[in-house]
């Protein structure tokens, strides 16, 4: 693939500049008046460059990047200049704007399953963009669509061009979205969190695809992400945004090695780095093995029946594991690995269908809510989404007190005292008891959730991805709190996560799940250093680390693994 020689660049423009944003201000108008989203953003993207815009939720990174396509929510107003190949996208309208979109700049979305229309074939969707911009026959457009699909590495593109989106896997759908963006060979692609919805092993593949495309076609890419590992893996240059403003702008290597601003430093410090601060660093053997066994699974299987004769789904197959009193067991796996199902089975939220699972001596194969109920006070549960795990109509205090209301008979004053004690333990002011859940931030809600789970001094805590809905800086604080409370109270915990780095920081003993099978178990530091199973090896290699130099070496390793 050669660089296209028919570029129509503005003569006054610097030849290598694709996008220049100047003094961009964006506000959103709501009932409460205008809310500033972006303030005074200046940045530029050169041809063939990969620029990463990083920031936590609400930093304005996505809104900023989308103006490159002239896309803005209807209640938004933008002022300033967004020059794409010299044309100000903020002043273009109607047909002029449509002409530019897709031809000069294209977009890749976060969630490939929502970015593709379920009722049209993928070929139709790729061809549509092609036929909008050039008057060519259907046949020719189809040939180009097939070519684009081949380019993004979809096998058998001639047949699969006629497939509907639901017939592809998540990673392949994202490839199709990229193919549609590439179809007209735009000079700039805006990728909004393109790998956030994907598993890490798939993420690695998509990132390497983007890197290859840049090398082959010279397309500039603006990648929006919250993941520092992704930045370290792919970006040439980085823009850090916070609260609508640019905090720092630097080449990737420089930013990671010599961050100038405090915000950037704290952001980098909060990112869990694979293999650092391992909870099992000083251990050589599994601890707590002499303590009593709280959870014991033997040949555990969980099968969900399908509807109306359609095939069911086996989430967990033949899993053996043990959790001892006082031990933190980390369970890692990608989506569909069965990790959440195991956690839920232990809490009696779903039934097991084969094998044996003993929880605090109770056999879950013969589960009856009535007989299990007395044991429930010894089990705490923290859910993934802190926003959804509180009843919006009850105050935080009422929610935290619910276990007390069910299992203890306390008078209102005693309950109040206990609630303030619990809130204090999770470092929340006692006054929060009167507030409603929506008045708290995500991190505060997750603390309150922890307080509720610990209300009855449980022996066992099950934490299902407790930090994956949080920003990294908040995640770091919640993890720290979890660690402190565990040391202090000494409860056993099952910590479920897709993030190996996080699990290793908290859990001494780690199990790796792959498609319902427990493929590997061991001390966290051992599993990371010497993974035995090929899946674990791929998983570890795929996880990008927030360090461009180290990541470059790891990338070489993945390529080796993929070839082998």
């Amino acid at each position: 693939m050669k660089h296209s020689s028919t570029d129509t660049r503005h003569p006054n423009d610097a030849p290598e500049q694709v996008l220049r944003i100047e003094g961009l201000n964006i506000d959103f108008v709501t009932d409460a008046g205008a809310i500033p989203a972006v303030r005074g953003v200046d940045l530029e993207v050169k041809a063939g460059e990969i620029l990463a815009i990083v920031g936590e939720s609400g930093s304005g990174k996505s809104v900023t990047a989308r103006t490159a396509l002239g896309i803005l929510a209807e209640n938004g107003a933008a002022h300033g200049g967004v020059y794409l190949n010299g044309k100000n996208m903020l002043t273009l309208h109607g047909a002029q704007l449509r002409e530019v979109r897709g031809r000069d700049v294209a977009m890749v979305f976060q969630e490939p399953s929502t970015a593709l229309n379920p009722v049209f074939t993928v070929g139709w969707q790729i061809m549509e963009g092609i036929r909008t911009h050039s008057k060519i026959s259907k046949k020719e457009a189809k040939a180009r669509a097939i070519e684009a699909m081949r380019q993004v590495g979809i096998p058998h593109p001639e047949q699969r061009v006629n497939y509907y989106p639901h017939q592809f896997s998540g990673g392949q759908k994202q490839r199709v979205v990229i193919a549609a963006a590439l179809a007209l060979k735009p000079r700039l692609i805006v990728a909004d969190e393109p790998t956030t919805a994907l598993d890490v092993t798939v993420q690695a593949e998509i990132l390497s695809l983007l890197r290859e495309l840049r090398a082959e076609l010279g397309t500039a890419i603006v990648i929006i992400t919250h993941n520092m590992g992704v930045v370290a893996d792919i970006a040439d240059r980085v823009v850090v945004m916070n609260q609508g403003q640019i905090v720092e702008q630097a080449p990737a290597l420089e930013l990671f090695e010599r961050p100038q601003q405090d915000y950037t430093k704290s952001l980098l410090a909060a990112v869990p780095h694979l293999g650092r601060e391992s909870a099992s660093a000083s251990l050589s053997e599994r601890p707590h093995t002499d303590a009593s066994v709280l959870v014991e699974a033997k040949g555990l299987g969980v099968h969900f029946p399908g509807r109306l004769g359609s095939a069911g789904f086996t989430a967990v197959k033949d899993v053996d594991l043990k959790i001892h009193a006082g031990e933190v067991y980390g369970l890692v796996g990608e989506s569909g690995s069965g990790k959440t199902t195991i956690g839920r089975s232990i809490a009696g939220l779903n039934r097991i269908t084969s094998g044996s699972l003993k929880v605090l001596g109770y056999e879950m194969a013969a589960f009856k809510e009535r007989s299990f109920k007395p044991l429930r006070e010894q089990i705490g549960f923290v859910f993934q989404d802190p926003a959804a795990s509180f009843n919006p109509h009850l105050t935080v205090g009422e929610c935290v007190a619910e276990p007390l209301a069910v299992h203890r008979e306390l008078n209102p004053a005693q309950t109040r005292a206990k609630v303030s004690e619990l809130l204090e333990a999770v470092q929340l002011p006692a006054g929060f008891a009167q507030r409603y859940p929506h008045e708290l931030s995500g991190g505060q809600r997750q603390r309150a959730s922890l307080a509720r789970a610990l209300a009855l001094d449980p022996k066992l805590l099950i934490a299902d991805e407790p930090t994956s809905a949080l920003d990294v800086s908040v995640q770091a604080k919640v993890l720290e709190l979890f660690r402190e409370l565990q040391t202090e109270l000494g409860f056993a915990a099952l910590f479920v996560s897709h993030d190996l780095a996080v699990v290793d920081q908290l859990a001494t003993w780690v199990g790796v799940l792959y498609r319902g099978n427990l493929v590997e178990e061991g001390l966290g530091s051992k599993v990371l250093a010497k993974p035995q199973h090929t899946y674990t090896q791929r998983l570890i290699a795929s996880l990008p680390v927030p360090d461009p130099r180290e990541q470059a070496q790891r990338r070489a390793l993945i390529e080796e693994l993929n070839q082998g």
Partner: protein
Amino acid sequence: MTTQTLPSANTSWLKQLPVISHLRMSSGLQRGMLVAGLVLSVLFFLCALFAPLIAPFDFAQSSDASGDFPRQAAPDAKFIWGTTATGYDVFSRTLYGAQTAIWVIVAAVVMSLFVGVLLGLISGYLGGWFDRIMVVLADAIYAFPSLLLAIVMSIVISQGQSSLFGGIMAAAISITVVFIPQYFRVVRAEVMRLKAEPFVESAQVIGASPWRVMFTHLLRNSTRTLPLIFTLNATEALLTLAGLGFLGFGIEPTAASEWGYDLNRAMSDATSGIWWTGLFPGLAIVLTVMGLTLVGESMNDLNDPRLRRFSRKKAKRITQSTQRGATQ
């Protein structure tokens, strides 16, 4: 980017009442629709309340001290909307019709609300064979033409003929039976959705009893959309009542005034060009239903923050002024 508008703690409870809070946060076209709806609804309510004071005659009065009323008389000074074939005053009958309508609406909606919500809650949460039977039953009834079901019910209840109270209750119960499946479906669907929400599961892992889960956690969260259904069903109750009356299954004209029945009588008048006997009761139905529907729809729009939109132009205008303010 989510911007939630939250009721701040210091606003009075009055301002937080459903309709009033909606009115406060509406603007532009939406406000116009809500206000129009409220005006029509209040008008309907006042007519029902003060019918005996406003109406010059009784609803079944065909004569006074000066003798029998003329039949099918065109509107004039004494009978401002004319008289019917039986000599009743159309204006008075139309006013009294609001009274009948409101009784039937309130009775029908309250009864179906209680039964439907309760069944939906229990069926959706507990599941099992009870749920399966209820769903098949509700679906079968839901798919059935509601007017036909109401006819069958009114045959069952009153053999089709009735007094004031009996007629109102017969109509109300017929309508109730039609509506229960609707409330049932809505609440059950909502309960099924909420059942998988972490806040319900967190109550389950704590060991809360099914009753506690249903009544502390599910009930209030699953009845969020009910004000809307309430207004929409009120209109459907009114239309069903009118339909029954039109087919002769309503309330005897001497027992109460009912718009649908009057329209039935007016059909033959229309053929000979007599418009006033049908127009006014008909308009009464249309305006009442429109009023209630406008209120319900506007409330629904305003309840969903994602549905509330500002035009690009307006956004530009508002921010332009802040921009100018910032640079000055």
